[in-house]
Structure formats: C-alpha cells, structure tokens
C-alpha cells in the first residue's frame, strides 16, 4: 500500500508541476491546467457561498468531496501537492529515534486550529469575502511555485518562464513557502495537521466515512509501532481520530500483529473518536469573525470605490464579483507573457491581497492575448475570445481595462520641446487611440521647434498600458493608465457618451 501511495503521490505531484509548466503561450494547447484548483472542495464551497454558483469546472470538486464521505481523507496523502511535499520533506528530515517519532506523531490539541481557521474562512465567505485562497493548500502551493520557486528556477538557468519574471512582494510569498516546508522539521506535516483548512473540511466530511482504519482490539498488543510512521497524528494505536487520518496506510504495514485493517466495521473493532473541538472556542471564533467582517467592510477599498491602480486583467468581473471569485492562485500571472500581472499588495484594500493587478511599469496587456481568462479556475477572469477582447464583430466594443492620461509635465513634446511619440507608435488599436497635433513652438532661444504633441482619444483607448510601458520617461512614465473607463464597471466611468453611470 505504501509503495502504491508513493506512486500516486509522485504521479499527482508530477501532474501538478506539468500543468504549471504547460501554462504559457507556447505550451498551452487547451490542456486543463487548472484542474487541481477546480477540483478543490474548499474553493468550490467558499466560492459557492460568495457567488451563489458552482462555476463550470468547479464541479470537479465533487469528485474529491463525494468519495471522502465514504473513504475518508484520501486526498491529503495521495493527491494534494502540498501534502505530498510536506510528507516528503518531513521524511527527508526524519533522522530520529523511533521513540521520538512516537512523541512527534502523537495527537496534539493544536491540531484543532485548522477547524477554527476553516470556520473563519467559511464565515467570511458567507459574508461575501473570499479569503480561502490565503490558506487553501492548492491555491497556496500554486502561488508559491508561480511567484517563488519558478522564478528562482529561471534565475539559476532552468527556463520555466520564457523570460525571467519579477513579482512584487514575491519574497514574502517565497519566505512563507520556505517557512511552511521547514516547519516539517519541527513537526512532520505541520501544515497538514495544524493549519490546512481544506484538510479540516475533508476531515469533517470523513467523520461519516464507513471505510476507515479499523483496529482489532483483541489482536492489538499496544506496541504503538503504528504510530512511528503515522502521517496524520490520528492515534491509530488507540481510538482512531477519523477526521485526522490521511489514509497513508503506514500503520497497516507497521503492525506486527496484523491487528489493523482498512474497511467497514467488524466485530471486535475499536471505537473511534469524533472531532476534537472546544465548542466555546469555536463560538468565540464565530462571533469574533462575525463582528470583524462588517468592520473590515467599513474600510475604504477597491470594493467600495474605484481605485486608480487597481486595473484588472481583460475579462475580469466587476470588482465586487471579482473579489467574490478570485482565490489569489496566481495562475493568470503564470501565463501572462509580459509579466504585467502582479500580485496586489494593499492597492485595493486588505481583501484584494495577492489578487492580480496590471502594473504597466513592468509589462503591458498584449493586444491579442486572452490567456489569463483561459486558465482562471474560478471565472474571476472570464474566458473571453480574442474577438471579444478586440471588439471585432459580433462584439460592439473592445474590452477596456482603463484609460491612459498624459502627464504633460513629464511628456517630452509637451514639456521639453523634444520629439518623441513612442506612445503613438506602439498604440495597438486601429485607428490609434493616441494621436498628435503638429505644432511649431518658439524654443528657449526663440528659434521655432516643430513638434508632434500627443493626445489620448478616450473613446478608442483600451487601457492596455503599452504606452506607459514603452515611454522613454522610464521611472514614472509621462503617460499612465488608471482604471477609469474599465468595461467591467458601470460606475467607474467618466464619459457621458459611454452611458450615464448607474451608481
């Protein structure tokens, strides 16, 4: 069983990495690279709470959740890439005596924490704030690979990205990932046992499973050998804690008496323990979050008012719906060819931490590219076609991310009598959204200087940001895009002819 589990673990970890590797323009050929994220029951449940729907591929989550009701938490040791990584690194570091393993693998009250975290995340979701992505293992490990490990691989010469990417705040994501891997040295599978809210959800589901590890009380001599390699800390030697058991089956192989087996109940089996939760603590948690959440909502954020720097990828839902869908997995940042998609810090408020925003200083939205919507597992960025993005028939208008504005105090032809109009050259729309007036101005010494002074046509500008990105005024461009005019918002508009704002 152990060998079989390792085979599955290697396969699913490999599959996960393969999907991440495939996620770019050159290799993405319609593969379901977001399968792991879509099959995540916590994402599905929380997303359903925030949005009222189980969006498309999220139904895959049932493939994980439904069998858990019958067979227990098989996902954690057999499929979950983070669980597999934790198991592997914990095993690497286990240079301990058996007696020490018994101590480490014994159940601890701290294992309750994950259930409280699950409660917090679900209450937030019920209130409309989707924050599961912060701690959901699939989103977390996806994000860590995309913004931490893969860029590092690129830096040492392994070309995972076609061009070396940079992510703002990437060091925080990297450090968090390193910390949770190193934590396995202190307590094996620390993350899975103590923190993981998805594990907690599956643990709750596993409570009713008819198939589980059973111990024949008569045959058991109480040697505790089963505990030496126990992955869940689920007390197989005693009254098994079903909600903690990862179904690694190590205990079965260790038992010298053959007293342990996996299956339905039989005569002589030990009884099992239910969920270990402090009801008062749970109630306190629920009340605290229920009080905190409206207070947090009373803070100014992109959710409450349009923010100039919160420019979302093409096809993104309106901000409130976007935040109700985005799990911060960073898949969109993986496929973005220009690296313009960056994990937000607090530009849009606390709620939007690590959600994708366009930072044109770094890249720009490639005119014919719609890859981000194709890999978004939750539909926060809708999968749009190139025709829809460009507004070619039958679509009436192109998708607008924002509008570009000239900073005439920094623009070379406007402020410094210097020819330029790089912005006009690179503008991808046809006709170009940037146009110019030919002027002849007296220079400093009175000599006339012929110049082309550029303007933005706000009706044509799509906010792609290539003008800002290629502007020769490199530290802070003389033309900059803000979110106003974005297609996805009926409120964040400035032009009367585009319709009177409904809010």
């Amino acid at each position: 069983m152990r060998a079989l589990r390792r085979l599955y673990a290697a396969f699913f970890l490999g599959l996960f990495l393969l999907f991440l590797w495939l996620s770019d323009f050159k290799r993405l050929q319609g593969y379901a690279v977001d399968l792991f994220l879509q099959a995540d029951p916590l994402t599905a449940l929380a997303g359903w709470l925030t949005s009222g729907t189980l969006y498309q591929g999220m139904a895959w989550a049932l493939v994980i959740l439904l069998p858990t009701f019958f067979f227990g938490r098989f996902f954690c040791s057999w499929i979950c890439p983070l669980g597999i990584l934790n198991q592997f690194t914990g095993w690497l570091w286990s240079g301990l005596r058996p007696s020490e393993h018994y101590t480490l693998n014994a159940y601890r009250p701290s294992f309750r924490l994950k259930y409280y975290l699950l409660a917090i995340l679900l209450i937030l979701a019920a209130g409309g704030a989707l924050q599961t992505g912060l701690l959901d293992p699939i989103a977390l490990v996806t994000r860590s690979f995309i913004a931490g490990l893969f860029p590092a691989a690129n830096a040492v010469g392994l070309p995972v990205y076609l061009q070396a990417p940079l992510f703002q705040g990437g060091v925080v994501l990297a450090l968090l990932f390193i910390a949770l891997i190193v934590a396995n040295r202190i307590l094996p599978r620390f993350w899975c046992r103590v923190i993981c809210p998805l594990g907690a959800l599956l643990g709750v589901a596993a409570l009713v499973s008819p198939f589980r590890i059973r111990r024949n009380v008569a045959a058991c001599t109480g040697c505790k050998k089963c505990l030496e390699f126990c992955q869940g800390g689920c007390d197989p030697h005693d009254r098994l804690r079903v909600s903690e058991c990862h179904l690694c089956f190590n205990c079965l192989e260790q038992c010298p008496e053959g007293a342990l087996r996996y299956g339905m109940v039989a005569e002589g089996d030990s009884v099992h323990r239910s969920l270990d939760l402090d009801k008062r603590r749970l109630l306190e948690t629920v009340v605290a979050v229920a009080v905190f959440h409206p207070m947090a909502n009373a803070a100014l954020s992109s959710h409450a008012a349009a923010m100039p720097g919160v420019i979302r990828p093409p096809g993104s839902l309106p901000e409130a719906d976007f935040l109700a869908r985005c799990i911060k997995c960073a898949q969109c940042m993986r496929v973005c060819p220009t690296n313009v998609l960056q994990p937000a810090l607090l530009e849009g408020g606390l709620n939007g931490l690590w959600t994708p925003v366009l930072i044109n200083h770094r890249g720009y939205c490639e005119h014919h590219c719609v890859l981000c919507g194709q890999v978004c597992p939750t539909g926060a960025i809708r999968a749009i076609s190139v025709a829809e993005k460009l507004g070619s028939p039958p679509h009436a208008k192109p998708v607008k991310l924002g509008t570009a504005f000239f900073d005439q105090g920094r623009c070379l032809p406007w402020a410094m009598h210097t020819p330029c109009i790089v912005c006009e050259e690179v503008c991808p729309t046809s006709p170009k959204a940037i146009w110019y007036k030919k002027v002849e101005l007296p220079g400093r010494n009175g000599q006339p200087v012929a110049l082309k002074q550029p303007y933005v046509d706000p009706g044509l500008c799509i906010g792609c940001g290539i003008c800002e990105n290629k502007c020769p005024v490199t530290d802070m461009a003389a033309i900059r895009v803000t979110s106003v005019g974005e297609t996805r918002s009926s409120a964040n508009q400035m032009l009367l002819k585009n319709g009177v704002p409904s809010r």
Partner: protein
Amino acid sequence: MLRELALAGGLAVGTGAGGWLVFSREPVRHDPVVARTLKDFRVAADPHYPVLAVVRGQRVEAMVREAVEKLGGMSRFIAKGDTVLLKPNIGWDRQPQQAANTNPEVVAALVRLCREAGAKRVQVSDFSLNDPPRCFQRSGIEQAAREAGGQVILPGQNDFVLTRMDGQMLKEWPVVRFLHEADKVINIPVAKHHSLSGCTLAMKNWYGMIGGRRNQLHQDIHTSIADLASAMRPTLTVMDATRVLKRNGPTGGNPDDVSEENTLVAGLDEVAIDSWSLRFFDLQPTQVPYLALGHARGLGTPDWRSLNVVESQIG
C-alpha cells in the same frame, strides 16, 4: 617577546601590502567594457547587375527567386559554409495579413535560397516590441523559417553586446550578438507607415537589431536611422511590399489599412530602395530627412532614377 614582535610586524606588513594591492581610486571594481566593431557585410559592387530589382506578381517564392536572380543570383552574395543572418521585421504580435511584420513566405524563400547557395547556417532573428514568443509565432515567420531549414533565434537579455556605432547620435549601443557572429546579413523589411519618420522601410528596420533604450531614439529619429544604416551594411536587402500597411503603422491591426501591392524590391542600396518605396505612401524623398542624411554619408542615393533599375512582372 621576539615572537610577539615578529607576529605584530608580520600582520602590519601583511595588512599594508593587502591594502596597497586592493587600493583604487574607483569605488567599485569593474572589468572595462570593450565595444566591438561591426563587420561590413557587403559584397563587391558589380556593374553587370542592376542596383535595384523590382518584381511584381502573386507567387511570392517565385518573385523572391526572380529578384535575386536579376541581381546575379544568390551565389553572388552567399559563399559555401557561410553563416547567414536574416533580419525580417517581427516587431508585433500580428498575423501576416495585418502587414505589421514581414511576409513569412518572403523569409522562407530567402532561407531556401541561402541553403541552396550552400550556407552552413541560416539564422532568422529580430528583437520584437511586443512579447517575442507571440510575435515570432503569430507572424508565421517562426514556422515558415523552420520549415525552410532556418534556425529561429529569439534574442534574450544576454544576447546583446556593446558595439561601436560611430554615429552622430549613437556612439556605442548594444547590438544583437548574432549580427557580430554572422558572415552575411540579409535585411528583409516590410513597407509600413510610421507617424514620426513617415515610413518604416529598410534603413529603419535596423532598430530590430539593437537593444538598450531604443525608445529614446525617437527624439532624433532621422539621425538615429542614418546612424544605424551607416553602422550596419547588409549583404542584400529584400523589401517586402507584397502587403503594405498604409495607415496606423507600424502596429496596424486593421485589414482596412492594408493594401495588396504584390511587389518586392531587392538591391544593395538601402537609400535607393527606401526612396523607390515611398510611392506606397505618396511621399517624396525630400519629405523623409533620413534619406538625405544617408545620401550625405555615402550610404546610397535617393535618386533611384539615375540607377540601373530592372522591373519585371511574373505570373
């Protein structure tokens, strides 16, 4: 006592010697960067052949063959075992019919001609403005060049070497290293509109071989174009005017801006080729200052009428 003295003296001498060795007036030590000089890729002029060959027609491959044949055949330009660099315009994430990039069939035909002439390696490269992998793929040039036996190279950050340009604006500038490594170079521009320079033709195509802060060059675009054309002297130039982008260049994007002209202009004189091609944009050589600059520097003549130009029409 003697031991302590010897030890202290040794340390003092060692410290002093170490300090003297690493002492410098420069705050940070750097290896001196030596700028390399570009080769002149031209072959000897030959009065037997025309300076410009204009071919009109529908079949691109045949047109390319005809144009090169009129100029003396590929063996005049390419020797056996040469490494040839082809420089089409692959600047934008656009499809061939949008005419923002060189027609892939022209590139493929030239790859084949070079191979037939015995070139050891035929490389195709350009430094795109949009995302390079997308530009190479969607322009159709990557696939066409590969299938024709060419080697497609996307320049990375480390593929640029500082190069002496000795121009008026451009003194030293980073240039794609494949240009230094090639034996022969063929310029394959596409005729396009451009707001600042009036048009993007052969001389301006050299932007795609340089790195650095090339968006600064707009500030004196005509001198920059002349500087680039003075530093980079190709073996052969084949201007793609099969489809011409008449407006909203150099990016295009709208099929309405594209005109089917079904023309190729090949030759050795970039100034003459560019001047000849101005007809697509209703411009006169006097309206495009970089042509006069090029003429003044001896790069060629804008007066193509004075040259031996052969025109032919094929099926």
